[in-house]
């Protein structure tokens, strides 16, 4: 690809045009060409330089203003900006960007695309992520799964024995990915969400499930209900489980006994532990983490 020396013509400005054309013909497509020289009146050059410097300078100021507008208040405060700069317009703008990203994620999703599965030797430890505030297991004996928004118009309650006897159990070793960046490969077993959807069909206009949990207290024991939105397209994915077993054993309270949602095509925060209620609705329901600035769709 080297053409050094080949196109070595002195650039005096009085070179006959024919010669430069003949040189061009000898050059390979990938060979470096000499920079095109142009003659300009000094006045034109000065005018254009002034224009370019003004335009780029103004753009720099605009970029700084834009950064000040988008940066979190904590960061601005640390930089010495004490005035509250964050506005609803900024929230709107960032949410708009987030929605675009969610739309991309939704476009990437396919109910036919399976997530990778692993062997038992590839299993890695899975932390419970309660950071020491593991819930009291007292809720487990009285636990029931309630279904609402069904086509039948009924309100169904199922206990763990109903679920395990009525539905076939599927096993999978998949990766759970947390929004924080860590992930774990774990061995799960449970019933397919899709089987539940077939046995108890949602009302026809339903597009979403609102998922509720019995994990409803924060680290200091105050009420902090967890609720999550799940689109039914994802719920019907063959690898979306209502898991009852972890590493071959019934779920412990660490991993959401007695039934947790396992949806490997979503971030860990959608994998709700100790699911107590599924409500099928037409409009997108509220989502705990979306209300705290995270995305809504969370497809990975």
């Amino acid at each position: 690809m080297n053409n050094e020396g080949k196109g070595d013509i002195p650039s005096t400005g009085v070179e006959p045009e024919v010669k430069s054309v003949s040189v061009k013909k000898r050059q390979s497509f990938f060979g470096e060409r000499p920079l095109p020289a142009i003659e300009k009146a000094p006045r034109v050059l000065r005018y254009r330089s002034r224009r370019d410097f003004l335009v780029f300078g103004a753009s720099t100021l605009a970029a700084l203003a834009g950064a000040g507008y988008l940066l979190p208040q904590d960061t601005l405060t640390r930089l010495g900006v004490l005035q509250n700069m964050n506005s609803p317009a900024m929230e709107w703008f960032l949410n708009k960007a987030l929605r675009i990203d969610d739309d991309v994620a939704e476009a990437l999703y396919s109910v036919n695309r399976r997530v990778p599965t692993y062997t038992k030797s590839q299993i890695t430890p899975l932390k419970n992520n309660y950071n020491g505030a593991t819930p009291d297991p007292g809720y487990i004996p009285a636990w029931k799964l309630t279904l609402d928004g069904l086509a039948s118009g009924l309100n169904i309650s199922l206990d763990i024995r109903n679920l395990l006897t009525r539905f076939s159990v599927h096993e999978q070793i998949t990766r759970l990915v947390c929004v924080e960046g860590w992930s774990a490969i774990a061995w799960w077993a449970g019933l397919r969400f899709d089987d539940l959807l077939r046995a108890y069909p949602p009302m026809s206009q339903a597009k979403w499930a609102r998922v509720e949990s019995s994990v409803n207290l924060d680290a200091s024991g105050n009420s902090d209900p967890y609720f999550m939105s799940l689109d039914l397209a994802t719920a019907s994915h063959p690898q979306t489980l209502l898991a009852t077993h972890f590493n071959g054993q019934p779920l412990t309270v660490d991993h959401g006994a007695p039934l947790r949602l396992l949806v490997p095509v979503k971030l860990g925060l959608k994998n709700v532990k100790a699911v107590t209620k599924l409500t099928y609705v037409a409009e997108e329901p509220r989502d705990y983490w979306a209300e705290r600035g995270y995305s809504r769709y969370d497809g990975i």
Partner: protein
Amino acid sequence: MSHSTSACKTSTSTLPEQPGVLVVRKHHFLVRWSHWLNVAILLGLILSGISIYWASPVYQHKPDPNTGNFDVAADIGIWICAHVPGQHHYSSPSDWIYNHVSLGPGMLALALRLHWLCAYLFMLNGMVYVAGLVRGGGWRSLLPRWTDLLDALKMFRYYVGFPFAKLARRQWLHPRFNTKYNALQRAAYFSVPVAGFLSVATGWEIHKPMQLHWLAALFGGYNAARVWHFWLMWVYILFVVPHVILVFADGWDTSRSMIVGWSARVGRSEVVGNEQ
């Protein structure tokens, strides 16, 4: 152009005495814009990226029995506060790194939103850059060639010897090349778009590890892709520092050319003609 009639008259009348200046077209309009936009976008990506890193550091160790700290970046902050003068009274040493080189600790949701916003802009800007390289023909100057191996060594020897030659007041000649960039420049300017491409690829892998799991396989798995993504950031940092120093050392013409597009250094060039 805003020529007044009188100005036109003077320019035509003085043309024989004051011929036009010969300049070379160096950087395409789109290349210049994407270059400066990239400064802001990369800064946003790095600052928000380190805020995201805070939530689950790639480099961890067993928790310290006294402090519970497991993050190597926090260790560095603690070391800085213990050893760097003026930092002894810093209120939260474990957050020092995050408070100084990121948006801040404990703002994962916001950092993610900004990171994705900047990431989409980065991809768009990359396309603008490539369009500028194609339209301006600048891509040919970036292609590596076999002679680069030896020429890069020559340049390396020049840079290493430069300070000693200055101290000894010896003459130290810059190796001569008749290309737009020397071999080291070319290696650097070629690596950065490649790193940009790899950052985007690993970024998508981390963002969509299930739908794009074939990408993860390419980089050695989900966790490996996070490590790639982290070290690719260092490619930009390690590029930018000498880049800025050398551009200033090279003179005003070089910095100006990235704003105005032309350079007055008419070395090996081809006369296209008098434009306007």
